[in-house]
């Protein structure tokens, strides 16, 4: 491989502390084979990871999962991370966040809580997560405000709730959110399995964008609304992770180090474990982190494309899921010879939205987790 400039620091460290989660969301990006992964890292190992990553220059810390609140050492990890100088983001469903824990996390130095909602209605929230959690979440939102955290609401959008954007934003305003992320589903993990049931139609998407524009015009900068466009409707790919191995370092519950939280299923790469190697070796020297750095790995049309320095060829995971080769151009790009795979999926979504009918959704589930992968012997691919 041609010489690649050494990377900068892994500025954004995401610790997926556990794959355990009380929810069963249909759009979860956790790997479908999560139940087959090894045991979770013990506290002492997470503490070492925090120290080593900080020494490399990591400064934004995400604590996620699964549901990070199921870890009883969460307060201890937050305290240590705060002492090291991280800005600490807890990414949670809110389930398990009692008043005592909100206060203990604040005292430990937690900077912000991102709370997920599935919808503005109890019915759909509870259906999509396969739990009765809407009222609990509303109470957690109140606690987050009462304890002075900046509040970020995250709602993953898809065919079944994208028509409620106006109500979702009104709910966020009532709750006093400072930031709202309307994140259209990214199709990895469980969301990939359910893609053909989740992808919205273009008309749905345009109405949601219009509702967001109206809301922004009314509310001004009191609330920041981020609308993450679903890339299937684009003609150029997203600059995924700013390129793999550039700024993002994720650690899976079992200690596997990943250049993207979805990258685990990429074939032919052995992702190093923090149980066996230092983060310095992993970040700078491991083949898995170097594989997609620079431009030497690119194929046409990326290799000679004037835009390759802007989008880095898009998402490696999406290239693999849709075309079977992670080094291909992300098929979201209209210059990709595989772009029709994306437009066909969108066309199927148009027909499905127009036709109505019952959704066949597969809920994230521990029992389902192993069979889903062993049936096919590989991450389940679409029927394209």
């Amino acid at each position, binding site marked *: 491989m041609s010489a690649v400039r050494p990377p900068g620091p892994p500025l954004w460290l995401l610790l997926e502390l556990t794959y355990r989660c009380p929810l069963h969301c249909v759009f979860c990006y956790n790997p479908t084979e999560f139940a087959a992964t090894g045991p979770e890292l013990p506290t002492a190992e997470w503490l070492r990871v925090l120290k080593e990553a900080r020494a490399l220059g990591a*400064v*934004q810390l*995400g604590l996620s999962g699964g549901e990070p609140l199921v870890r009883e050492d969460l307060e201890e990890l937050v305290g240590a991370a705060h002492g090291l100088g991280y*800005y600490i*983001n807890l990414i949670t469903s809110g389930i398990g966040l009692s008043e005592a824990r909100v206060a203990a996390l604040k005292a430990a130095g937690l*900077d*912000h809580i991102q709370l997920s909602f599935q919808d503005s209605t109890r019915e759909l929230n509870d259906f999509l997560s396969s739990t009765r959690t809407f009222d609990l979440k509303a109470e957690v939102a109140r606690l987050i405000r009462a304890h002075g955290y*900046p509040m*970020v609401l995250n709602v993953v959008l898809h065919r079944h709730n994208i028509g409620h954007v106006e109500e979702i934003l009104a709910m966020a305003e009532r709750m006093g959110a*400072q930031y709202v992320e309307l994140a259209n589903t990214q199709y990895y993990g469980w969301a990939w399995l359910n893609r053909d049931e989740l992808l919205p139609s273009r008309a749905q998407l345009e109405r949601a964008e219009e509702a967001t524009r109206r809301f922004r015009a009314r509310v001004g900068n009191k609330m920041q609304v981020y609308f993450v466009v679903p890339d299937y409707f684009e003609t150029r790919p997203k600059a995924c992770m700013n390129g793999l191995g550039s700024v993002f370092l994720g650690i899976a519950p079992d200690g596997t180090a990943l250049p993207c939280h979805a990258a685990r299923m990429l074939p032919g790469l052995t992702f190093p474990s923090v149980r066996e190697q230092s983060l310095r070796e992993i970040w700078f020297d491991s083949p898995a982190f170097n594989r997609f750095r620079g431009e030497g790995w690119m194929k046409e049309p990326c290799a000679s494309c004037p835009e390759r320095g802007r989008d880095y060829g898009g998402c490696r995971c999406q290239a693999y899921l849709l075309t079977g080769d992670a080094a291909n151009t992300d098929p979201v790009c209209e210059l990709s010879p595989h772009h029709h795979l994306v437009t066909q999926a969108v066309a199927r979504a148009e027909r499905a939205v127009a036709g109505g009918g019952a959704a066949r959704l597969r809920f994230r589930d521990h029992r389902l987790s192993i069979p889903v992968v062993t049936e096919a012997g590989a991450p389940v691919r679409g029927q394209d």
Partner: protein
Amino acid sequence: MSELPLSARLAIGHGMRLQWEEAQGAHVLLFPEGMVKLNGSAGAILSRCDGVRTLGDIVADLERAYATAGLEADVRAFVALALEKRWLELPP
């Protein structure tokens, strides 16, 4: 917007944190799931916005520190941008 009085006190925005990052050789402003790497002058201004010092104090302090005069307009322009982006707020 009416002009900010020189007596206005300035503070880092709620939920944001300013710190020096050795690995980046810069001040950074940290906020929920995001970060801004600040250039030298932005870092010099924001690191003086402690909720106690006024706009006038900050201008005077910067003019002293950089042994120059006439910085008020530049500082005002940056402060207006930072307030708009909520990097800064006016404490009660």
